[in-house]
């Protein structure tokens, strides 16, 4: 029972992460790390799993950066 709830929470979290990851690897990543500008497609795909796990942190950085440079 408890395990089912924890599993559902984890799956929900990762699903949100996947939703976030798509715009992030297309646009957001260039904003938070300048070395990502011109980064290859392979690079963008390879960071998706990580983005699904660490998305709250990346979201925070993206919002912050958006404020600094237009």
């Amino acid at each position, binding site marked *: 029972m408890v*395990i*089912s709830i924890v599993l559902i929470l984890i799956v929900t979290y990762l699903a949100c992460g996947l939703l976030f990851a798509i715009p992030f690897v297309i646009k957001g990543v260039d904003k938070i*790390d300048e070395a990502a500008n*011109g980064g*290859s497609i*392979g*690079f963008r795909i*390879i960071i998706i799993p990580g983005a699904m796990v660490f998305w709250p942190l990346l979201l925070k950085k993206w919002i912050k950066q958006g404020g600094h440079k237009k």
Partner: protein
Amino acid sequence: MGASYLAVGWNRQKKIYDWFIFAFCALYLTTFIAVTALYNPDYTFETALIRSTATLAILLLHVILSIGPLTRINKKFLPLLYNRRHLGVTMFSVALIHGSFSMLQFHALGNVNPFVSLFTSNTQYNSVSQFPFQALGFFALVIFFLMAITSHDFWLHTLSPKIWKALHMFVYLAYFLVIMHVMLGVVQYETNPVLFVMVLAGAATLVTLHLVAGTKEVRKDNRIFKLKKEGFVYVCESQDVPDNCAKIFCIDKERIALFRFENKLYAIHNVCKHQGGPLGEGQIIDGCITCPWHGYQYLPQNGQSPPPFKEKVSTYIVTVEGSQVWLNPQPLPEGTERSGAAIIIPDKQIIENVQ
């Protein structure tokens, strides 16, 4: 480095390394499965796959964990260290096959969600002989997963080196979980003690290697430099530094690498700008000090990466008097050019002091 990110920064050496890993894994798995089919024809293919990937993963894990201390003990192991992350990702992939097939075989056949089944099919957490050892393997796999998905340099910058390194250190917890996974699992189904003994021997070897390398390191760091004059400290005799290699000295808590290149001595800060790799444990390749971890390069003459790269490390002034090497532990600004201290060839016995 100055360039944009790629998925994998392959070069010739890394390709050879990856092909070697791949060939070794393929050979290991096919041999294991063939031998199983020959001697235990009643085994299913799934069981052979689960066991072959399990043993390969734990073997690779032991290699990964020995590389650090081995290179500190003997430089011959340096080629293993370079590109270690690919070994880590390979280990994770192999373990993932083992874990996935175990889940399929033991938990996906009922109508309970396999992940629920993993934790509920056996709840004898207070028993040794019946312990749900699979949960231990699962948590180890989660740790390896986190390490594998954050292995790109992008994550090092984004998470900050400190957090990334902390995450990395969980590998020791994962190792412990794997050992318990095997120990508590094997007693449940295996009558042959070979695997048991091998894992114990492997763990003992790893602990010994880390202790030997660790004490060596501590002894080096605690060395007291007594001979001082005018800001310089006496560090060693000039013939102590092997050609194209370095000796590392820890002076006032800073590690400094003293390199010998074309019979001159150059000192630079020991810490690589990429991920803090120990430059003094690397060698000079094509005239550049090459970091043993991922191959960032620096010129001995000025501590700068050759263009187009922009990394710079602090440099230090060295002098040679007779056979004595003196080093000024006051760092010069990063990337400062200074000439090397020429080593005086003993048979000429001329005291010339090139600085």
